Structures are given as structure tokens and as C-alpha cells.
């Protein structure tokens, strides 16, 4: 079940998504960007923002933004709300099945606005 990774080394546009306060600390939201569903998480302390695909390859539903976030041995991760597989927020790698990976996106916060990099 290997997912192809969207490689976005060269960001050409930064798409404005929402205000930072639209994402409650330590939860996620889903954004619709150029027809793609992107799950964006805000992790505290430190206001780190991560973005991965919203599609859960295990349940085949678009739900990852609704998972519980936390860490496994210090790696920030989200657990799918359906069958509870965990995904690293850093790399999109599924931590419970080496063969599965979801895409990651570049994100940044400018003047309290969350932006996702697309290319």
C-alpha cells in the first residue's frame, strides 16, 4: 500500500488559509487548496505548524485532520480517528506500517496568517 509522495521542494506560491486562532492549540483543521484536502495541525508549546494530506489510506476517508495529536518518543504525530494508525507530522510516514506514507506540505505563519506552500 505504498502511497506516492507529492514532492514539493520548490514552493512557487504560498496560499493563505486561515488565521492562526482558527486552529485551537493541539488540534487540526482541514483546508481545501487547489482541489487538495490538506490537514493542518497546530502543536504547542512552541506554536509549531505542520501540514500533511487529509486522506487516510487505511480507511480511505478524508479524516486525518480530525485525529488526536501527540508524540511517540518525541516525534510529533497524529492518530487517524478511524482505525488509529499513527502518522509522523514531520515526514508523513505511518509509524505503524512502514510501507505507508502520506504527503507533507510546507507551511508557515506570516502575521498570524497560516499559509501553505504549493508548487
Amino acid at each position, binding site marked *: 500500500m505504498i502511497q506516492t509522495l507529492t514532492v514539493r521542494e520548490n514552493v512557487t506560491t504560498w496560499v493563505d488559509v*486561515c488565521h492562526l486562532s482558527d486552529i485551537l492549540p493541539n488540534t487540526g483543521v482541514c483546508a481545501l487548496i487547489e482541489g487538495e484536502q490538506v490537514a493542518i495541525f497546530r502543536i504547542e508549546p512552541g506554536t509549531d505548524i505542520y501540514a500533511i494530506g487529509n486522506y487516510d489510506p487505511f480507511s480511505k476517508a478524508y479524516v486525518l485532520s480530525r485525529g488526536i495529536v*501527540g508524540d511517540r518518543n518525541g516525534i510529533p504525530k497524529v492518530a487517524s480517528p478511524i482505525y488509529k494508525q499513527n502518522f509522523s507530522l514531520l515526514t508523513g510516514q505511518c509509524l505503524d506500517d512502514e510501507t505507508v506514507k502520506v504527503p507533507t506540505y510546507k507551511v508557515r505563519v506570516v502575521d498570524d496568517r497560516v499559509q501553505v506552500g504549493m508548487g
Partner: protein
Amino acid sequence: MTAKKNLVVIGNGMVGHKFLEQMIAKGANQNWNLITFCEEPRVAYDRVNLSGFFAGKTAADLSLVEPGLYQENGIQIYIGDRVVEINREDKTVLSANGVTVNYDKIVLATGSYPFVPPIKGKDVPGTFVYRTIEDLEAMSAYAKTCKTGVVIGGGLLGLEAANALKNLGLDTHVVEFAPRLMPVQIDDAGGSILRSKIEELGLGVHTSKSTTEIVSENDKIVKMLFADGSELPTDMIVFSAGIRPRDELAKQCGLAVGERGGIVINESCQTSDSNIYAIGECALYQNRIYGLVAPGYTMAGVVADILSEGTPSSFTGADMSTKLKLLGVDVASFGDNFGKTPGAKEIAIADTINGTYKKLVLSADGKLLLGGILVGDASAYGTLLQFVQNQITLPPYPEDLLLPPREGKPSTPAMGVENLPDTAQICSCNNVSKGQICNAIRENQLVDVPSVKKCTKAGTGCGGCVPLVTDLLKSEMKKAGIEVKNHLCEHFPHSRQELYHLLRVNRIKTFDELIQKLGKGTGCEICKPAVASMLASTWNEHVLETSHVKLQDTNDYFLANIQKDGTYSVVPRVPGGEITPEQLIVLGEVAKEFGLYTKITGGQRIDLFGARVDQLPLIWRRLVDAGFESGHAYGKALRTVKSCVGSTWCRFGVQDSTSLAIEIELRYRGLRSPHKLKSAVSGCTRECAEAQGKDFGIIATENGWNLYVCGNGGMKPQHAVLLAADIDKETLIKYLDRFLVFYIRTADRLERTATWFNKLEGGIEYLKQVIVEDSLGICAELEAQMEHLVKTYQCEWKATIESPEKMKRFRHFVNSDKPDPSLVYVEERGQKRPATEAEKSLVISQ
């Protein structure tokens, strides 16, 4: 250093994988280039638990290969590629994809294929076999167009396939050539008990039937014909008439094979070419094929020992004992099950009321157990097998070993794990002995069953030995003076009970404070919801308060149950199951307006399915306006208090069970607990509300009420136990308050009352002392905590729709008002349901 030699393993099934794992464990990958060909489109998976696929397990769940294992150890694997030729002269193998590899040694682990008898029509569309994940996918897709299904073959695998057909919703039949089911494992008496149990489940059983033809019309199967002139209409057929070894490569390159197939091996698992080994279901040892995984694993171990130049070992045959749960019926057969040893004696008990059959085969002098058969209840299997394998002298009245535990008495005073010799085999699937397990526990200071499994592999096959492994772990830990730890997860070095206590005495009200003071890291999906539940059952703040939101699983976050496609279900509370015509109309209208699928639940209320996140608040606004409240179907909380109509209408009722059920449901609604809580009230001893299958159940008597506690249905049904008899309503509520808070304070995470009760030392007597006699002097405190919770109850949905801040969350996209575009529905029986993947691709391509 000499150059590494090439070892080609053909077949990456259960045994092929086991062999590679053993080679790695023995460090032999240092001396060998390990190359393996895997015909299937995925690496080895757990075929033994293949049927779990229908219970929702994914291919990933079933995989046996620890991620990274092959890569890290330099094993070259060709997935989806089959070896088509072995050239013994050039010492090369050639694959279907055209890969050629030189070999020094070969291990054949090609397994077997399902045998399909040469019946007319055997290859028509609608016929299947049951061996691979692809077989199951094809079966379940085809079953959608069928009403009836037949399995040909009533052996172990046939019954498993029948279970699958039944779960796919088909009217299911089993056709067996022999006069009884499972002819290899059990005798006639056991067979007839098994048959009646299976018939009770609504399956058709047809024995002594030989199929002669499968008849199709317009490419669809219509019926099958039997040699005796009878016929059986059906829409699809699954063949499970035995297995045949895959020896085609062996034949191609001229190795010796058996008369009826199978690659001939010696005690070293070598074939007629000493450079080629064969292991698993393709191998024939002393004219015998072993169709179970354990003997295959033993062979894998033998070859790994030889090729790693480790301790010499040999394969000298294997035990074919099995324990299985087929269609929910336990079946076990072990040792000399048919009493073939000269002079063997038998003791058998056939209980046609409870549907159990147990037979012991004893040695001529009655001192040793040689084998046996268990049907309907195989709980004694582990113990009995130990008697056989270790030749332990039987107690004076061996039949005692067969009797079920009687009320108030502990179960068979069989042998504790302490009394087993170190050589006793505990896990037969992976051939792990007691000594190995105990050493692993001691040396690695293991403290939980998952680590013992990981470390020793015991318990990772059929799972049948896990209770014994657990007992061993407990006894080892006790010996070492270690208290049995049950840390919540990697973030908290405390059990749920300890955390709960600390949280209350330190008056901690948020997760952040708790993890800062008592834990580490940022938490996870295990500790966060557990802590949320503890906070709720102590302080009772709204679960969507900003500080709690991040702790909630999606069900609690959106106050609804997530479904497979990411939509949610809506379950309003219907206290006691009583509902007015007006309320029914509102539910109907709301369902129509929002296009929801409706169903009466098993909990006496109505579930509305298929609500999108953005629809949830709109739906609930309508429901709240009509007087409905949250039913907490999404929470680990009080679910329903079912009722029967009781004395108000029923001619036998002795008390008003409906009124009491409503009162109780309203009192405890919203109560958060370690696991869900269910209750019921029956109006008389006929028990139509099934109160004895509930966490707390109440049954009316002439003089008042009987209170039963700690029962449940579900995966492991257990009857509730009587806590107090003939009490009045006030006393009943007092006891309930105490009982519930005591449970909430002391149970483990996700531990239902029955499981909690089973661990309670002193059992019901102790519980009576605490709850009725207040032996711990805590009852006033327990009642006060419940009083606080009852007073501070609020309907979570009402509070949510009244808060614009909370409402903001209910949208699929943060930057768009569009709903989730991936949702697709089709119509079935006049209502919608989620489209399957196949249907989706059709809809999308149109």
C-alpha cells in the same frame, strides 16, 4: 573473508518468512545473501487469521513482516514475482518477470493450493477458493449480488469460509462428503454436537453429499446437483475440499515427489537434491503433509539451524493438535484424539443442553492422558495439552477435568503454570517452551504481555496460548517481587487508578497541568481521552471547553460517532426506550430533511447515519428544539437504560419497570466512565429487558427490586451478579451511586464492569462489603461525588449549539464552506448507504 553465498527462498508465505526471520535472528545473513521470491502482491501475512479480513482487519494489520526488517538486514525481495524454473545444472533460478539468480542453496516454501474437485462446472463465474487476500476480496465483491452461498467441504477451513459467507449476509450452507463435520479432528458424537450448534446459527449442513455438477444459467450459478439425486439452489460456491502441495517447481527440476504430491524431505528437510530444502505445506515428510503452521515453523527452524551452522536439529514429525473457534464454537482436538493407542480408554461427556462435548483418551492404566476432543467449550485445552505433552500423571478422578466450574467454586483445580516443567511447550504455533518464556521475562525484565510476545513470539500465532503466557508472566513477576505494572502509556508512569487518585487529591483540572506534573511529552491517543474521561467524571466540565477539546477523540470532539466514510451518526437519548408519536415524527422529518439513513438500534433507540460535520449542529438544533438530548452514543459514558413495558401493560409485570428505567437513565445520563455503561430494568423475572446482561441491571420482585451488577453482552458475554435483593427504590439508587463511583475511581482505562469485577479480589462478597456495608468507610464520599455529577449535568449538544465559539468547529474545511467532496452514496432498500470503493470509481468515472 570468503564471499557470501546465495540462498534463494522461493515463496514468502508464513513459513518462508519465518525462515528468513530465523536466519536474521541467528545472524546467518552475515554469511548468506538472502534472496526471496514472493508470488503474491504483498509480503508474508497471517494466513491463519485471514478471516480477520472480514472483521475489518486490513492487509497491513495482517502483515507478518516487521516494517524495515528485510531492508535493514539486506534481504532482497522480489514482490509479485514467481519462480518458474530451477536449473540444477547451472544452479540458477528464473522468475516470471525474467530475473535470473545464481544459487548455492534453495529453500522451497511454496505452500499449497486449495484442491478443487473435478466437478462439472467447477470453473464457472461464482466459484471461489479461500486462501489469499485476493480470494477474499473477490468473494466479498461477488457476494453483494448473491443471496445464498455454499461451501463445499466441512473441514476446518470450510467452516471458516462458511462463517465468512454468513457474515457477508448470505444464507449459508455447508456440504460435506463425509458423514460428519471436521472428520479429521473430531468423532461422531462431537460432530453431531458441532452440527446442531451450527444449525442453530441458521446455517444449512448437508453431510454424506457428493457434488456431481454445478448448474449455471446466463453465467450465474443457480444450483448444484448431488450423486444421490438431490439438489441445492445457490448463487455462489466456495471450494474448501482440502489442500494440495505446490510441488510444480520440484517436478519441473526433477526432485523426488510423493505419489499424491508433496516434495519428499528427510529429517534435515533436504529434498532429493542436498542443495535444495523444502519446508512448510509443500513438504512431504514420511508420506505426510502438515497442513498447519506450527510444523512448518519447526521445519523453518531446523533449516535455519543447519544453514547458520548452529545447534544441529532435525524434524521428526509434529503434533497436529488444534484449537479453533469456528462460527463462534470452540473446537479442539489433541494427541491421540480417536483413541488408536492399543488399550486406550475413553471418558466422554456430551451435554446436549449447553451444547458441549468433551472426550478424554486415557492410557490403559488410566494414569496418563493421551489425547482428546473438545467441542463447545475448549477452555481446558491449554491445561489438557500440557498433561499430554509432558506425561503428567492425572488426578484420581480425571473426569473432574471436564466439568465446568460451578458457581462459587474456582474452576478446575488443574495444574498451575508453576507446576509445569521448563520443557513444557506453551506456544505450539511458534514452538516456545515455558523455560524460554520465563528466561526472556527474567533477562529482559519484561512486564507486559505485548513485550513477551514480541520477545519470544509466543502468542503471535493463533493466540490460543495467551492465557498461559499471561499466567507465566504474572507468576514470574510475583517471584521477582515486581509489582504488576500497568502504566497508562509512554507518557504517564502511572496506572489509570493511580492517576485518577492523584488528579483528585491534587485538584488538577487540565491535561496540561497533569502531564507537566506527572508525565512527560505531549500525550497520545491513549492517555488524552483517558484523562478527559477522568476530568469529566470528577469535575464534570463541558467536554468541549477549550482546555479539553484537544483531548477528545473525534467522537467526543464532534459529539457524534464517526463512521467508515468519515461522516457521523446521531443518536438522541430516548430514556427507557419510551418515545412519543410526536418525537418519532420529528426524527422522521429530520432524517428526511438531511437525507440520513435511519435504523432502530439494539439499545432501544433510533440512530440517524450519514451526517456531515457541517450538518451536525443544524440537525441538533432541530432535535434540541423538539426536546431531545444527546444520547452519548459517542462517549465512554452511560448509554441506554433499556426497559420492558412492565406492570403498566404487561399481564405479568409486578413493578413499573419503564418509570424506573427512565428515572435511572435521567439520573446517570452523561456520566463519563472508564468504558461505556449500559443498564436495563425488567418488570418481572421473565427478564424481557435483559437486565442480567448489563453493567447494572434491575429486576422487579413482589417486594421491590433485585440489583445485579457487572454483566455485559458484547465480545465476551457475562451474566451480572446479584448485589442486593428485594430493596426499595431509595436504597437501590443509593447503592447504584456508590457502585458507579467506586467503579469509575478504580477501574482501568477501557475496562468494562465485568472485566473489572473479574479482577476484584474477594469477588461479589467484597463488593457487597464495600457497597452495602460500607466496610471502607467511603460511601458518603462516593454518594457526594455522584450528587455533584448529577447536579452539574448539562446536555452537551444544547450547550454546544448555544455557543457560537463552539459551533465554529463544525465545518469540513477551515477555508471553505464546501462539504467533503469525497462522499459518495448509493441507494439500498429505499435509503442511502456509503458507496463501496468499486461503486465509487464507477460514479466518479461517469
